[in-house]
C-alpha cells in the first residue's frame, strides 16, 4: 500500500463510518462488553504497587513500590515455579499441536460422515470434564492402596507397587499425558474445521496427477494449515507464564511431596496467599504473568512478521 492510497483511506474515514454505521452499531454491545469487562478492571492493576487498605480504598491506599513482588523471588521456589511453568507450557504446546494436527488429519481421512461425527464427539468428551473429576479419575489409577495400576497391573506382574503421590519424578509424564488426553479433542477439532474448509479442487487435481494420500497431506494440507498453526501458537504463547490451575493443583491432589514437579506460578501464589486475602500480592503475581506473557507474544509476533509476514497476528 503506497502513501497516497493510505491518505485516501484516511480521508474517506467519515464516509466509511457513515456507510458502515449499522455494522458498528451491531458491534457496539460487544465493544462495550470488552471495555467494561476487559479494560476497565485494568485500572485495578495499580494495586499491584500499593499496600491495599480496605478502609482507604483503591486510590487512597499508600504506594508500596515493588514490595508486593518480592515474595515471588525470595526462595528456591522462584526457580522451580518459573522453570516448571515454562517447561510444561513448551512441552504441552509442541506435543499438543503435533498430536492435535495428526488427529485432525486422520479425522479428515475418515470417509464415512457418521463415523467422523462419532469420533469427533468421543474425543471431545475429556475436554468437557471438570479437572476435579479428572483428578479423581487419575487417583483411581494411581492410588497407592487400591489403584488400578498398582493392584491390577504392577502387583499381578510381580512388581512392587509404586507410591505415586510421594514420588515427584513421575509427575511430569503423568501431567503431560493427562493434559494431552484432556485437550487434544478440542484442539484437533479447531484444526479439523480449518482442513474441511480447504478447497477440494487441490486434492482432486493432486489425485489426478497421481499423488498418494501421504503426498497430499505433506504437500497440500500441512502447508495450508501453516497460518492457522502459527496464529494459534502465537496466541497460546501469551499464556506462557500462566498454567492450568486445575491440572497442577487438583490432579496431583495438592500432595506436598510432589511440589518440586507440580508447582507452577499459579499454584504457588494460591498456596502463599490463600490465607491472607492479600489483594496487592495476588495482583502483583497476576500482573507479572500478564506482562511477561505480553512480552513473549510481541517478540514472537515480531519474529513471525520478519520471516512470514502473512501469518503474523498484527
Amino acid at each position, binding site marked *: 500500500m503506497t502513501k497516497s492510497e493510505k491518505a485516501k483511506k484516511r480521508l474517506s474515514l467519515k464516509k466509511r463510518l457513515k456507510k458502515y454505521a449499522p455494522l458498528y452499531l451491531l458491534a457496539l454491545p460487544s465493544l462495550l462488553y470488552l471495555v467494561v469487562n476487559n479494560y476497565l478492571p485494568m485500572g485495578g492493576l495499580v494495586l499491584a504497587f500499593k499496600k491495599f*487498605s480496605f*478502609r482507604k480504598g483503591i486510590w487512597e491506599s499508600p504506594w508500596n513500590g515493588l514490595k508486593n513482588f518480592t515474595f515471588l523471588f525470595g*526462595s528456591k521456589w522462584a526457580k522451580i515455579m518459573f522453570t516448571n511453568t515454562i517447561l510444561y507450557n513448551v512441552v504441552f504446546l509442541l506435543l499438543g499441536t503435533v498430536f492435535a494436527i495428526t488427529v485432525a488429519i486422520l479425522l479428515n481421512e475418515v470417509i464415512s460422515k457418521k463415523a467422523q461425527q462419532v469420533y469427533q464427539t468421543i474425543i471431545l468428551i475429556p475436554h468437557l470434564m471438570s479437572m476435579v473429576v479428572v483428578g479423581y479419575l487419575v487417583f483411581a489409577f494411581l492410588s497407592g492402596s487400591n489403584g488400578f495400576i498398582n493392584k491390577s497391573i504392577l502387583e499381578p506382574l510381580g512388581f512392587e507397587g509404586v507410591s505415586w*503421590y*510421594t514420588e515427584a519424578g513421575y509427575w511430569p509424564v503423568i501431567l503431560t499425558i493427562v493434559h494431552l488426553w484432556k485437550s487434544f479433542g478440542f484442539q484437533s477439532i479447531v484444526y479439523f474445521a480449518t482442513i474441511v474448509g480447504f478447497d477440494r479442487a487441490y486434492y482432486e487435481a493432486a489425485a489426478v496427477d497421481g499423488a498418494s494420500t501421504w503426498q497430499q497431506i505433506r504437500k497440500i494440507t500441512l502447508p495450508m494449515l501453516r497460518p492457522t498453526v502459527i496464529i494459534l501458537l502465537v496466541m497460546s504463547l501469551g499464556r506462557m507464564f500462566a498454567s492450568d490451575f486445575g491440572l497442577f493443583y487438583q490432579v496431583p491432589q495438592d500432595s*506436598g511431596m510432589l511440589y518440586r514437579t507440580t508447582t507452577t506460578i499459579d499454584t504457588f501464589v494460591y*498456596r502463599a496467599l490463600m490465607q491472607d486475602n492479600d489483594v496487592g500480592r495476588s495482583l502483583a503475581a497476576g500482573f507479572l504473568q500478564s506482562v511477561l506473557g505480553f512480552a513473549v507474544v510481541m517478540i514472537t509476533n515480531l519474529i513471525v512478521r520478519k520471516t512470514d509476514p502473512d501469518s503474523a497476528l498484527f
Partner: protein
Amino acid sequence: MKRRNLILMAMALTGAAALGTTAGAEGVEDWPVVTTAVVPTQPVTDEEMVETALNEYLVSIDAGIQMDIIPIEFGNLSTTMTLMLTSPEDPIDVFSYNFFSKLTSVVANEQVVPLDEFLEEYPDIVDVVGEEYLPLGQINGTQYALPNIGAYGQIFCYALRSDIAEAIGYADKEGQLMTLQEITEMLLKAKEAFPELAFITNEEFGIMNIDRLGDSNCTGVLMNNGIDNTEVVNLYATDTFKEFLDCAVQWKEAGLFLDDPLNQPLDKSYMKTGVSGGSFHNGFSVEDARQGANVYGYDWKIYPITEPVATAQSASGSGYCISSVTRDEEASKKALYLMYTDENVMRFLAQGVEGAHYVVDENGCSWYPEGESMTSLGWGTGAQWYFPNQTLCIPFETDNPHYYEEMLASNDNCQKSKAIGFAFDSEPVYDEYAAVTAVIEEYRDALVFAQVDVDSYLEEFLGELEAAGIDDVIAEKQSQLDAFLAAEE
C-alpha cells in the same frame, strides 16, 4: 428496604402498641439499621420471620437500632465478606472473621475499626468477656475485636468408639490421662480386634503439648503449652516431634492410618461413616469432648492426652469486629454490645424463633422441634459457637442444662499459656514465611503419616526449613512475643 417498611407497618398496626412501648417506638423508621451476617449451611427461608421478631424485640427495649440479618452461604463466605467489607454502600457492619480470615489480616487490611472507645462506652463488656481474655482481640495493645465467648481452654484426647473400648477392655479407663505411647498400645489392640477399621484419620498437633501461637504451620511454637516458658522454638527440630514421628511409624506399620492418607481429606468425618473406630479429638473437658464426639453418631469413650490448658492457639480463632466502612459506627457499637449481653438478641441470631426453630424442655435444654432436623428448618440453629456469646443461648441437643456454666467455669480453672492473646504478624518476614510455609506443606503430611522414610526425610526437611529462613521467622516471632509480654506487664 421494602421488607423493613413492611415490618414497620406491621408493627405500627399491631405489635408496638400492644408491647406498650409506643414512646420508644416513635421514630423507629429513623433508627439506623445495622447489618450482620449468619452463615448457614442450608437455605434459610425464615429470614423474614426471625428479622421481624428481632426487630420487634429491639423496639420493645427501645434499643435505638434495627438489625438486618444477611445470610451468607458458607461456600461464598470469603468472596461475599471481602466484597461487603469494601463496600460503603452495602456494608456488613458487625461481622466475625471466622472461617474466611484472621484478626491480623483484617487489621492489616484495615477492614475493622478500633474498639477502645467502645470499651469505654460500654465498660461492662469487659466483665462479660473476662479481662484476661480481652487481649485475644488486640493487636499491639489496641482492641480491634471482641473474642467469641466460649471455652478458651482445651484438652486434646483420643475418642474411641465405646463398643471397641469394651471389646479390648479399656472401657473403665476412660478419662485417665495417657501418654502418646499408651494411646498407641491401646490402638494396636483395637486394630487387632477390628482390623477393617482405620484409627488415625486426622492431624492433631495439640497432642504434643505445644502452644502453636495461632499459626497452624507451627513455624515457631512454645513447648509445654507455654505455661512456664516463652521461648519460641522450631517444633520440627525438637525431640517431641521426633518422638511423635516414631509413633507415626508404628501407626503406619500397624495400618492404623486411613488408606492413601495424603489423598483424602483428613478430618473426623470418618467417625460418622464408620470408616474409623476413633479419632484425635478435643473439648474443654472430657464430658464436652464426649458430647462433641456423639455428634458423629455412635457412643464414644474419651482418653485425654493433655490437661486442660488455654493457649494462644486454643483461645484465638474467632472474634467479632465492626467494619471500617460501616455507615453508622455508634449504631454498630450498640448492636455489638447487645449481641454480647442480651440473651434475646443472641437467641434470635443463633437459635431463631422459639417454637418454630427450637423447643425448650422442662430441664431448660433446647432441641429441634418434633420431626425437624438441621436440614428441614428454615433457620440455622445448631451453630451457637459461631456467634458472639453462645453462653447466653439455651444449651442445644444436650441433656446438660449447665453446659454453658461449666464452659465458663473451665475458663477460670484451666492452666494458661503466657502467650494468650498473642498473634503473630508475618508481614515483616513475609517472603521467608511464604517460603517456609511452602516447605512445610511439601514435607509435613508425608512425614506425619510416615509415607516416606522418616529419618532421612526429617533431616532433609529441617535442612530445607533452614534454607527457607525459618530462623528469621522464629527470631521475628520471638521479638514480637517479647514485645507483647512487655506490654502486658
